[in-house]
């Protein structure tokens, strides 16, 4: 922290020194190739970058004391530019090149992040698959990582995840799509001005809040309702998690579908009206088919969101890896198990901890495939009507 302050102070100093030296040259009658300010800027960024690089190096090699190395590097950078100040120094061009390099580096962070995700998840997964054969992971039907003879069968987690996703989609697909149709086709400006922020508000509710609601309000309600009708329902059921997750996804589906429906050219609607069709007939027979690819991709993004959602299922679905399609039974999901394996003691040599990364890899690949497909459909669709 201290060295950071010193670096910045030195860089500012370098700015003023170089700027003044260049200004003095200009005042002396020399024609500079860049304005004095740019000489200052150049000194500033060179000093700053040199200092930061030294700081990072000092952080990696303990032998190098940061408090000496970083300021020294910054000073050296500043002095180098100060000495280089001359009428022929193309300060602006060099400065702009450095800025551009920094911008490129910043945009490459996205690539680094992806590489980082793949690398970190894949490496630990490899360790996992050295201990547990891939076949027994992918096709095993028994998930009991803490048993004396642990078994890592992925299938019950997959079915649990799918079960909850199906419930969520059953709730969210009609609600989201119909509200999008209402917003895009029927609502006047005033209704839109109320309904849109409302949906955004729902989208902004943290999932931990929805999880608490699912576990404490929805699940007991389902349980008592079931008891009243003579069923016995587990207090942690796929239904409670699925219903609340469905409500969480409604804003996602509706805002994506809203965009898609709005992108359908007005001429298509006008043509349909001209033939005497009513509004709902136009929507169902003209607008909907035209918007279908976009709507499908909205649903796919929603599925990917549901599969990757963690807090709601952690709090409401439970940890029991039951291989069942009964929506009123307790199930567990991929994300629940990832967090269950990693919260608490982590031992990076045990299959239990490593299994979280194998699950993470699977989750990443599944959602990645869904996302790529959906985004491609959206892109094509946009090009189609643009």
């Amino acid at each position: 922290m201290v060295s950071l302050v010193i670096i910045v102070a030195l860089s500012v100093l370098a700015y003023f020194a170089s700027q003044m030296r260049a200004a003095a040259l200009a005042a002396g009658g020399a024609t500079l190739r860049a304005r004095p300010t740019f000489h200052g800027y150049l000194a500033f960024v060179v000093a700053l970058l040199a200092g930061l690089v030294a700081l990072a190096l000092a952080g990696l090699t303990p032998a190098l004391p940061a408090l000496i190395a970083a300021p020294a590097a910054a000073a050296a950078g500043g002095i180098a530019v100060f000495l280089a100040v001359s009428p022929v120094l193309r300060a602006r061009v060099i400065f702009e090149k450095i800025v551009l390099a920094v911008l490129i580096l910043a945009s490459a962070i996205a690539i680094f992040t992806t590489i980082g995700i793949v690398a970190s998840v894949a490496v630990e997964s490899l360790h996992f698959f050295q201990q547990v054969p891939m076949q027994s992971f992918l096709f095993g039907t028994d998930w009991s990582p803490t048993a004396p003879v642990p078994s890592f069968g992925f299938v019950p987690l997959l079915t649990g995840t799918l079960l909850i996703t199906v419930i969520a989609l059953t709730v969210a697909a009609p609600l989201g799509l119909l509200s999008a149709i209402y917003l895009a086709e029927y609502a006047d400006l005033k209704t839109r001005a109320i309904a849109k922020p409302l949906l955004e508000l729902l989208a902004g509710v943290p999932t931990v809040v929805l999880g608490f609601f699912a576990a404490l309000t929805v699940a007991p309600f389902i349980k008592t309702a079931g008891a009243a009708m003579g069923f016995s329902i587990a207090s942690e059921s796929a239904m409670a998690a699925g219903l609340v997750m469905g409500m969480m996804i409604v804003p996602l589906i509706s805002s994506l579908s809203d965009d898609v429906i709005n992108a359908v050219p007005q001429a298509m609607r006008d043509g349909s009206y001209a033939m005497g069709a009513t509004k709902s007939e136009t929507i169902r027979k003209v607008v909907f088919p035209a918007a279908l690819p976009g709507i499908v991709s909205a649903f796919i993004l929603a599925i990917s969101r549901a599969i990757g959602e963690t807090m709601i299922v952690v709090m409401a679905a439970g940890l029991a890896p039951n291989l069942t399609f009964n929506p009123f039974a307790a199930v567990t999901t991929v994300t629940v198990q990832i967090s269950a394996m990693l919260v608490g003691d982590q031992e990076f040599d045990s299959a239990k901890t490593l299994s979280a990364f194998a699950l993470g890899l699977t989750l990443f690949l599944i959602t990645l495939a869904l996302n790529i497909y959906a985004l491609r459909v959206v892109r094509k669709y946009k090009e189609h009507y643009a």
Partner: protein
Amino acid sequence: MPDIVLTAQQQRTRKRNLTEKRFRRLCFAAIAVTAVFLAFLVMNLGIKAVPAFTSSAMPLTINVEPDKVDSTAIASGDFPGMVKDAIAKLMPKVESRADRKKLYQLLSGSVADEVQHRVMADPSLVGKDVTLQATLSADADMFLKGQQTSTTKFAGTAPLSLAADGEAFKISAQGHGFKAGEIVLTPTGALRVTETSAEGAKAEALVAPDETGAVAAGQWQSLQFSDGEDSRRTSDLEAVWLQRFTDQGKIQSMFDKALFTNGDSRAPEQAGLRGAFIGSLFTILVTLLTALPLGVAAALYLEEFAPKNRFTDLIEVNINNLAAVPSIIFGLLGLAMFLNFFGLPRSSSLVGGLVLALLVLPTIIIASRAALRSVPPSIKEAALGVGASHQQAVFHHVMPLAVPGILTGTILGIARALGETAPLLMIGMIAFIADVPGRITDAATVLPVQVYLWSTLPEAAFRSRTSAAIIILMIVLLCFNALAIFLRNKFERRW
């Protein structure tokens, strides 16, 4: 009047119009269901949260006895002992050690801490009396709020006849039917009804009464509970004590400051959000300071400088995909990269902030690009026309005009980061941390994780605490969103 006969075509039109109406209503219903859900969610949590904002307390005078505390080593003094004596003085007839302990446990453990605190600050208090508002324990507080069991109180409107019958008592009162488990409070004692019969009831003494014979109307009262003694945490005897304190007008309901000023605690009445507040603040600062410059820089490059080639295409595909990667995966990244590879401190706001920065980076980039794109090209062209370099045109003219849009997108991204829980669980921000963090490398927790932590605790008192934390979190998020909307409306320019 003859029936109006519709032609086939008219009938069809009528049917089609009906369908139209029905479809429209169906669409509206979808929005209504969503709105009702949201309203129900907020109301449900709000109602649950209300009790957590108040706590019960009673004034207590504690004698700081010199034989219990050495003025040279105050920290090792027996402060709980003093508090125990002080409250025992208020409730005579409590003699057994076990009962005295129970009586003391009506109070929060924080009372002894506070006495110690005061004596440490002012050692001259040794040997004197200290008077303070003693917070009650969460169980006592919940009992008084009626959250453990619902209590029905009967004022004795007729004289109560009271006759000793060996160890037990026979009681009866005109016009009042006693129930088993009911508690009868006489001026000096308390009885629990054990058997009932037509002419009266048999009762055992919880606190032996001095009086026998008759108790005048208005001098006694009785309490009935909806739950048996076994199924609540406050016993009948404790209920009697609390009722006595209430009758003496001692118990006051106050605004619960501890919820805001304390760090986390295992005792519900002492658990507060201050640690989580500070943790959230540090985490969000780290996120903002990393994600905003990186996001804006990336957006500037991609929107203004990048040539159209495979590299920039790759970046764009990456950004769009990262925006849809599940947040828990970012937690795995943080665990494997920041903790295991770079060795940054576990559970710290620094790592949490960095993970969240990567998480919201795509959002900020996409919003910033949209903001930059909405600035009309004529502005840049004019700057270029008068001889500005490309970068001067962008940094001096385009970017300032895009700032409101960039800020709006950033605030929305930050609001999302503030509500994020799952990735932070992976990097250990879930540990129980009673201390308030002082720097970004200290172990910390954040508001949503605190909500999750409290929701997993078995004590019922933590449920209303959790709801209160949720309401506070939602208010903070609402403020962020309101700020974003305000900025958008105030500074947005349509060209």
